[in-house]
């Protein structure tokens, strides 16, 4: 039963991802082809520089042939529908082509290599963000729920609304101005100091660079989680089993952390997973501000350099990660709440 449900979600997610890739392929068709044409032109010109000893006519025929071959290889002479189809198929096979300007540190121009270089850093930043936000958010939320309408409770709901429309990258700019220039405690950006230390110092250096962007994201993100936790816990505190526990003389601390938190945890965990995947897409600008060389920073660089293949590649990867997240969320949901997998409609 659960297995069919999981399988269904996976198939559905895959189909949705395929449809999206086809949409991108159709939407960005002309600009992608334009880039590809000029790339092919450059490639062939470079190849032909080896054949200088040929006479003019031979040279021209060979060049035309090479160009035609390449065009055929990339399906550039096919009708529009086929071109869109083949580009989508390439994207689905992670075949993103070469970047026009951006290079990976080892000089590789493949978009996939560039993205795979950046992706783990984004994952590190945002998973540590979600862990911290969940821990502190749940903690604050629990204490806020303990005294409804108390100071902490009011502060939480007010801060939730205040931080709601605050761009995280703006807070990032302020944090850099304050903590990197006015009171220089943290580095203003990057992944490592230069020169990079080795051994344990390397890890410490990495964490030191991680702390400011992390702090920014946590300061902004923690309130929403706290507010939601507070709501969930507050609903649970009305339950009879809590009253029973209190009547048995169990200390309030244990009622809160042992009984209530345990039953509220599934809901809170799903929320945390959801916020992980929404934050990957939402906070990409923060990376650019801090020069944290992840996917988000890649957007900054690609926009600056107008590197179309990298833009398209990052968009596809971002879409895939997003989709994986939602499928995972559905699966966890179904696991935690058996009612969902039986229900007919989404």
């Amino acid at each position, binding site marked *: 039963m659960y297995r069919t449900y999981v399988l269904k979600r996976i198939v559905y997610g895959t189909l949705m991802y395929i449809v999206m890739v086809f949409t991108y392929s159709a939407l960005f068709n002309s600009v992608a082809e334009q880039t590809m044409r000029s790339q092919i032109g450059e490639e062939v010109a470079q190849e032909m520089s080896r054949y200088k000893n040929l006479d003019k006519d031979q040279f021209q025929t060979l060049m035309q042939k090479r160009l035609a071959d390449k065009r055929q290889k990339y399906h550039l002479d096919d009708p529009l529908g086929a071109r869109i189809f083949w580009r989508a198929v390439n994207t689905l096979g992670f075949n993103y082509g070469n970047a026009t300007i951006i290079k990976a540190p080892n000089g590789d121009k493949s978009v996939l290599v560039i993205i795979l270089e950046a992706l783990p850093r984004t994952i590190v930043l945002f998973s540590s963000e979600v862990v911290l936000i969940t821990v502190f958010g749940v903690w604050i939320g629990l204490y806020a729920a303990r005294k409804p309408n108390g100071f902490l409770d009011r502060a939480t709901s007010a801060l939730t609304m205040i931080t709601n*429309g605050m761009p995280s990258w*703006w807070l990032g700019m302020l944090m850099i101005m304050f903590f990197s220039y006015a009171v220089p405690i943290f580095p*203003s950006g990057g992944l490592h100091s230069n020169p990079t230390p080795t051994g344990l110092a390397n890890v410490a250096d990495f964490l030191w660079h991680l702390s400011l962007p992390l702090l920014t994201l946590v300061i902004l993100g923690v309130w929403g989680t706290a507010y939601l936790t507070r709501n969930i816990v507050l609903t649970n505190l009305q339950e009879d089993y809590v009253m029973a526990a209190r009547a048995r003389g169990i200390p309030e601390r244990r009622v809160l952390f042992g009984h209530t938190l345990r039953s509220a945890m599934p809901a809170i965990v799903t929320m945390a997973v959801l916020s992980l995947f929404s934050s990957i*897409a939402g906070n990409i600008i923060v990376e650019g501000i801090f020069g944290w060389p992840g996917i988000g920073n890649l957007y900054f660089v690609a926009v600056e350099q107008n590197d179309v293949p990298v833009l398209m590649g990052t968009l596809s990867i971002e879409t895939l990660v997003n989709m994986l997240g939602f499928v995972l969320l559905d699966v966890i949901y179904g696991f935690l709440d058996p009612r969902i997998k039986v229900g007919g409609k989404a």
Partner: protein
Amino acid sequence: MNTRDSLERFREFWTEFVQVKSGLVGLALLLSFLLLSIIGPLVVPFPDALSHWHDINYWQDNPDAAPPAWTNLLPWVGKKGCVSRLITSYKTEKVEEDNGVVLMKYSFAYDYRWDKAPRDIVVRFQGSGQVPVMISIARPDGLSAELYREQLDLAEGDVGRVSVARNCGQQVIEFVRSRNEDLAANLNPDLIKPIRILFSKLDANIENDPEPLKGTYTVTLSALILTDQFRLEKPAIQVSGDVSGLMGTDVSKRDVFTGVVIGIRWALIIGILTSILTVLVGVVLGVVAAYFGGATDWVLNRLYEFVYLMPVLPFLIVISAIFKPTIWTLIGIICVFFWTGPYKPVYSMALQIREETFVEASRALGASRRRIIFRHIVPILLPYSFAVMALSIPGVIVYEASVSLLGLGDSSIVTWGQILHDALTQGAVINNLWWWVIPPGLMIALMGMSFAFIGTALDKILHPKLRTR
């Protein structure tokens, strides 16, 4: 539903709304934003800034990267910087000479009471024709200096500009020499700051550590009107100092306060327009999907999931980078993503309403589906959708700002995101130009906050489920 009914309903709603304090705070904030966006051109020091935001000439007489004027009041600021200001009030004096030539004198009084000399004083006027112009300054210690004497040839509509810092160095040395030969001998014409000498006491410290001479200075612009063709209009002097305005200036000499106030208009337009469009589309589609069911339901729900699962910000960035849309197109694209906000709650509520007896009754009476949807179901769902709408506005404003921050905004308008883009790319963060970074971002946050406050209040009042609590 007639007018009295809806008035009565509104009154009911209003009595509930005023009880939610945060809602009132949000409303007050929003109203002040609206007011500011309307009277903006009247309160900003540069009313033409909207059309001249990227025009370097328009801003050239301002100081660059100057902190706000009120920083002078901070207790830890030792030497008070000169406040930039535009002086447009003057006294005219008309001297007719024997040969029919008229000498016009425009005198500007400037009260100087700061510890640091101005960066520049620019004498500006509009005029046309050929005219000999003379500029002189009278100092509080009774001394006066002739700064400029030139025959200007202006075409129709030209602006005559004389910058004391740039055009009058030699004259200032002449002035010092006329008082004290020895002092003048030490001055290097390439290194001196003419303005600093003019606004300091003439003593031995003049070269290195001049002591400011405070008091009222009079700058006089004299023009010899030889013929009738010459006109001289709108004379003014711009004092450009170390501090400027309410929120300082950026490195391109633009007044940040003016930019921030102009930005309100666009934030409101983007936020409100998007939310109205998305709510209309979302509500109608939600009701249609729920009411018709079957294939319509399936298609619309798949469409919903398609849009909902797409990463919005990356998509917006890529599409802006490739197609460079205008602000209206961008609003359209944002709408494509945001109608999903009201869709799901409306859909599930409409599923319930569809089964209500009054819907059945009107169907039995032979009402068309369109009538049932638009006259019976949509009006019930619209109020709650306003809450959803208000809650989605902060997101829309942040998205637009994020796209602008990457430099992909519509360059024909001024938004807070674009001001922050300039700040980011032109080193405001590194050089600690906080007055350039804090105000626009704070405005985004405040605007988002006001809608979040209103939305939460509306949600509390109008949400059908929460009401029973």
